[in-house]
């Protein structure tokens, strides 16, 4: 397995479209790095540049220290799993899996043995003589993984491999991919737009937006300490509530004055003025009986039952805020609701846009931030 390094890599398409903008990252040997972001964020382009399917406009990509910018995809010794699976329809499962081995001039005995072994691992031994069109989505997925694994490449690239599966199968295959990565101790770059998939799979995740990496961190760090408002809103489901406003003394007041609450004391000594965004995750919002220092008041709009929890949407001054509460909580639309915002879980962002940076609580970490 190999280490993959991207150094100030950019991709500009012919018409001047900047798909990837000056990104740098290192995928350590044996690491599973997830590139996650909305469509058009440049995550797939980044993956395809690593694969060699797209030219690099600027910067350097290294695999095990060797610059591969000019190396053709077939010579990079990297396997890729495509969203569409890209199985060769005119070839049987066995022939699909032997295809990369034939390219390497392996002898037939060895090819047969390797395929049998890999099929065993993936539970597709019964399917070897079928054509891809005769397989279900999950089976096709396994074959696609098998074709990647069978040749023992330096690294694996997975381009939204689970996106075309139904929810149940997606969870199953997600676990399978995680297990395989562990067993093979493989260097893996996994692209997805699904933040939940990113959180569960990744050793580290790179959250991308507009061709830039917003945050590169272990999933729990991206969740607890999102580096900017975009990451805060993208990671976590349901997504974080944002209140735009300003600090007045120890109070946070929303722009239209409809919300006023006592700010978490950890931000007390922060010297901030101008427009700010206060963020709080729905799971850190609870229902309060009485208004208080850390509550905001509005009227219930709708509730969504998730099974193990219920999401209550509350309208305050024309904006909706969400609280994730116990599933047996009952409220009628229009009823007045007091939401308690756990002060220990306040996030503060310096500005109002997606790029508004996280304000590190002054008494929590070193003063330089």
């Amino acid at each position: 397995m190999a280490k993959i390094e991207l150094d100030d890599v950019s991709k500009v398409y012919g018409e001047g479209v900047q798909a990837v903008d000056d990104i740098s990252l290192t995928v350590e040997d044996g690491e599973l790095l997830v590139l996650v972001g909305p469509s058009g964020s440049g995550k797939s382009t980044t993956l395809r540049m690593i694969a060699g399917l797209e030219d690099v406009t600027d910067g350097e990509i290294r695999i095990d220290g060797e610059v591969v910018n000019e190396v053709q995809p077939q010579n990079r010794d990297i396997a890729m799993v495509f969203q569409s699976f890209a199985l060769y329809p005119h070839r049987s499962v066995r022939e699909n899996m032997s295809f990369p081995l034939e390219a390497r001039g392996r002898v037939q005995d060895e090819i047969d043995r390797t395929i049998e072994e890999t099929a065993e691992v993936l539970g597709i031994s019964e399917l070897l003589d079928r054509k891809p069109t005769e397989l279900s989505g999950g089976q096709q997925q396994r074959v696609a993984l098998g074709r990647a694994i069978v040749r023992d490449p330096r690294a694996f690239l997975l381009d939204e491999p689970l996106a075309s599966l139904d929810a149940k199968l997606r969870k199953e295959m997600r676990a399978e991919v995680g297990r395989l990565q562990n067993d093979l101790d493989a260097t893996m770059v996994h692209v997805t737009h699904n933040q939940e998939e990113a959180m569960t799979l990744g050793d580290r995740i790179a959250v991308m937006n507009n061709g830039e990496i917003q945050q590169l961190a272990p999933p729990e760090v991206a969740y607890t300490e999102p580096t900017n408002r975009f990451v805060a809103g993208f990671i976590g489901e349901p997504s974080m509530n944002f209140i735009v406003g300003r600090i007045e003394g120890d109070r946070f007041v929303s722009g239209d004055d409809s919300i006023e609450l006592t700010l978490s004391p950890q931000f007390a000594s922060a010297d901030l003025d101008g427009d700010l965004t206060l963020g709080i995750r729905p799971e850190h919002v609870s229902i309060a009986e009485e208004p208080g220092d850390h509550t905001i008041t509005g009227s219930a709009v709708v509730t969504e039952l998730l099974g193990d929890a219920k999401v209550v949407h509350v309208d305050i001054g024309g904006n909706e805020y969400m609280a994730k509460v116990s599933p047996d909580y009952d409220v009628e639309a229009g009823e007045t609701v007091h939401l308690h915002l756990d002060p220990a879980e306040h996030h503060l962002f310096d500005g109002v846009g997606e790029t508004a940076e996280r304000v590190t609580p002054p008494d929590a970490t070193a003063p330089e931030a």
Partner: protein
Amino acid sequence: MSAVDDAFARVENAFGRDFTPRTPREAVTAIGVTAFVTVVLVVTLIPIVWIVLTSFKEQPSVLRYPPQFVPDFTLGAYAKLFGQTSSMQYSGVDASMAFTSSIVVSLASTAIALALGVPAGYAYARNAGKIGGHHAAFWILSVRMFPPIAPILPLFFIFQNIGLVGTRTGLILLYLTFNVPLVVWLMRSFFRDVPKALEEAAMMDGYSRFQAFYKVSLPMVMPGLVATALLTWIFAWNEFQFALVFGKDTSMTFPVMFIQLHSAQNVLWNQMAALSTLGMLPIIVISVFLQKRLVRGLSLGAVKG
């Protein structure tokens, strides 16, 4: 199982249902459909049957009235075509020479049209921007849009100047002007249906760009390629107008021979029928032989697989 039962079973299988009528309404429909198909088949097949029967008659029985339905079963018409007892009015070209020309010209022009058109179609399907874009592709097709008679005169003078009139090479070149655009356009649409990800997968699997084309995309469009080849070949095989003007002596193809069988004195109907029968034969044989692939090729892209 009789051949008819077998054919029925295949049709039912293809449509995924049983066509045995169950209600009076279905029975009426079945009778109506059968009657319609019968009429269509009779109308289309009777002339062909008549041609084949005529080819086995002597010239006098061809003109007999009322018509003679059962032929004499003589091969005289065929023998005359192949020059055993020559009654050729114009030139010494007999059917063996004409068919040789036809075979050489049609096969060569098909092979070259495929050799040029398949890669071009692929290029237009994958990266039209680099080779003139869709306007260039359309321009290629536009060659087929004017009536073929229009360029005949200018082409004749050009060909005469460079000595290509009366040569097989000349005919091959002429047929390319019509067949290359056809191949480019058909293959372009077939290649478009091959997902790009498959070629990328092949490259990731360790194959070069060309190998990805050769080992993955080409086999996938094979049914389409076979259908395209057949259409191209049939065009060249049956073409008359250009062959009449540009083909002479050794380059005279079989459709032009019909002219020779038709003079001021008489029309050699039995020999014409024999020539037609021989001309139809390879097309029918090849079509039957390739039937399965052909249907798949012609419907390729129409239904997503």
